[in-house]
């Protein structure tokens, strides 16, 4: 039998020499242009990074393409960022432009760096969608592609943003990727209650687990004790899909009802303001493959309103916090449906307990 528990490779073996030498001894960095950074070590050594976009869902040949570039210009080293972007690392300044050229030849954009005034949009954190997941209320790769085609200029820096802007997508409320603290998040959502298959339930599901799974206690045992199953109170179910996660007999996918919601204003970093949650601003847009025009247009519109109105260095959520949500809805001209008003467990804390607000 093969060895188990070997663990991942030791990262130290993977580091380029300039990093090994200057490990933990970096002094400062500069962003030379979109996608290109220079890090300078205490020793004076320089490290150039070229960052490219990637669709995350890639073939082995894609990886080999990257390897070719790295072999040619980076002594066979590269890394990926926490947002899927491959980064090419080299101590040689003169390699930067050739790397960019090679990447562009491969169809890969260079960009995605920066923060504060003039920031680029980076890659979209996203999930599996219809490519692989059973729970997806929307696709992931398809809609991300549609979005990024439209937002491409923000990635490569032809258009810039007032500050770092993180766009993310999850195909169901499990929110793989933990996109709940993104400047803009697109989330796949069902809008119909689960369709229970009582037959399957018996063989496939643990009833107590199913009952416990429901955030709003919409699920109770079937009133007929002979039927080893459950029923759903449709006035309490808000289609989260957690029952389906634990029980295949409760699918809730529905071509008509499924779609996405849009959340905005979250952030993760502790810079200036503490991390914030993203907030629902559009409760439902339909799934319209392959290009999801409603979603793409809405997101793009939000980007534009943000770019036009926020102050330099102000993240989406910081801007909204300053001007107020009423102003956000005014500026974006988005409607304010009742779904946006919280009625879950911590709802009380979202209500406005002051006469301070704007007429917009």
């Amino acid at each position, binding site marked *: 039998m093969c060895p188990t528990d070997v663990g991942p490779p030791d990262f130290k073996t993977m580091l380029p020499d300039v990093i090994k030498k200057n490990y933990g001894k970096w002094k400062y960095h500069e962003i030379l242009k979109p996608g290109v950074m220079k890090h300078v070590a205490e020793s004076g050594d320089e490290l150039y990074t070229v960052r490219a976009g990637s669709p995350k869902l890639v073939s082995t040949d894609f990886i080999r393409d990257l390897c070719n570039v790295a072999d040619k210009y980076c002594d066979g080293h590269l890394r990926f960022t926490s947002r899927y972007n491959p980064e090419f690392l080299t101590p040689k300044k003169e390699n930067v432009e050739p790397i960019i050229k090679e990447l562009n030849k491969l169809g890969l954009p260079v960009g995605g760096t920066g923060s504060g005034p003039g920031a680029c949009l980076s890659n979209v954190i996203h999930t599996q969608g219809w490519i692989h997941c059973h729970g997806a209320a929307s696709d992931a790769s398809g809609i991300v592609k549609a979005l990024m085609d439209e937002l491409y200029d923000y990635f490569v820096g032809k258009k810039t943003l007032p500050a770092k802007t993180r766009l993310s997508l999850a195909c169901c409320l499990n929110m793989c990727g933990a996109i709940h603290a993104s400047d803009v998040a697109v989330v796949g959502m069902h809008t119909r209650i689960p369709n229970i298959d009582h037959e399957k339930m018996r063989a496939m599901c643990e009833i107590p687990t199913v009952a416990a799974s429901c955030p709003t206690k919409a699920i109770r045992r079937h009133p007929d004790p002979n039927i080893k199953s459950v029923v759903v109170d449709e006035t309490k179910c808000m289609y989260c899909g957690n029952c389906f996660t634990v029980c295949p007999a409760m699918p809730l996918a529905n071509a008509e009802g499924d779609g996405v919601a849009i959340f905005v204003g979250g952030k993760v970093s502790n*810079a200036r303001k503490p991390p914030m949650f993203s907030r629902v601003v559009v409760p439902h847009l339909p799934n319209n493959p392959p290009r999801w025009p409603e979603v793409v247009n809405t997101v793009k519109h939000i980007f534009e309103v943000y770019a036009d109105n926020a102050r330099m260095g102000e993240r989406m959520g910081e801007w909204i916090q300053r001007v107020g949500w009423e102003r956000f809805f005014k500026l974006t001209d988005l409607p304010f449906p009742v779904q946006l008003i919280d009625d879950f467990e911590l709802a009380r804390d979202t209500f406005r307990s002051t006469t301070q607000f704007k007429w917009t």
Partner: protein
Amino acid sequence: MEDKTPMVDELEKGPWPSYVKELKRAAKKHDSVKDLIKVQERSFQRKMTQWKHGGIVGVKGYGGGVIGRYVQNPEEFPNVAAFHTMRVNHPSGWFYDTKALRTICDIWDKHGSGMTNFHGSTGDIILLGCTTEELQPTFDELSEHGFDLGGSGSDLRSPTACVGPGRCEWACFDTLGLIYDITKTYQMELHRPPYPYKTKIKASGCPNDCVAAIARSDFSLIGTWRDNLRIDQNAVKEYADKKFDIQRLVVAKCPTEAIELVKGKLELTHPEDCVRCMHCINLMPKAIRPGVDTGATILVGAKAPIIHGAVLSTVLIPFIKVQPPYTEIKQLWEKIMEWWDENGKTRERLAELIDRMGMPAFLKAIDVEPCPQMVNTPRANPYFFWG
């Protein structure tokens, strides 16, 4: 089913690199991906996933690392009848040499679909699409070449770190070293799910939090420092000379008014007020740096929305030194796991358990002294316990 996939094909167009192009490249070598493209087209037509629920498959001796997946209509799409993903744990910081990458590619072209995620959202290399039979051989070969599976199920998920000391001047501790050490130490917990539910560890070298630890790890380590940030006045002058508006962009945005321009000099006039938010440093990396008495803040409990709404990690230990062999950190983590494992209900994450039992009860159980840094504000309600 028709072989034409017009909707999917549409997504080959456009400036952003196309996953469809990638699918098609893999499809040249792998019949499974030919079917996968058709499955995707079907999803687009029907506006629904075409995959069955769940699946429980794996490799011998492990309880996690593989996500089982079966297609809804195997008759139509026989080559993806079983189409599991393997999660392969990554080297800390996602650093690779091309040799390692090529090895993985070769193994995967041999046994699987040739499609991957570089990376999954947790941080694993996702090998996307494998038959049940090929799981063990794939694993065996990976293992031989020094790769191992990542987490899945109710286990410790593959821990991740920001690039930290590898390339970042702000790393307040060795994120990569710590995460590698933790990963190696807790292989058992990673590969053989022992807990009520999944649990995650992530480490960011400074409060910028480039792995989003605070948003998505039950145990989040975020670098910080106890002394004062360092300012190089010459460099400040350079920024000013370049017409960089220090007052408006930096000083005015300090959340605590700790830093000020005093006669052209940028001074940390109220060092005790600085909350180490990184803002001034971020904007003037050549002039301002973190202090030298560095370490980490430990926060706990982040998770995705289900079941009680999303949670961000909250401060547990305001400051801890982070040095090998990381004994104190590991002991703390083990104590937390012990409490969670003992008290948590099935599928109850740490934050949810803390909320159910109460933060005071949690602190008592793991023997951590309360301090004001743990809260934004003390309680407003008068409902507290004695004894």
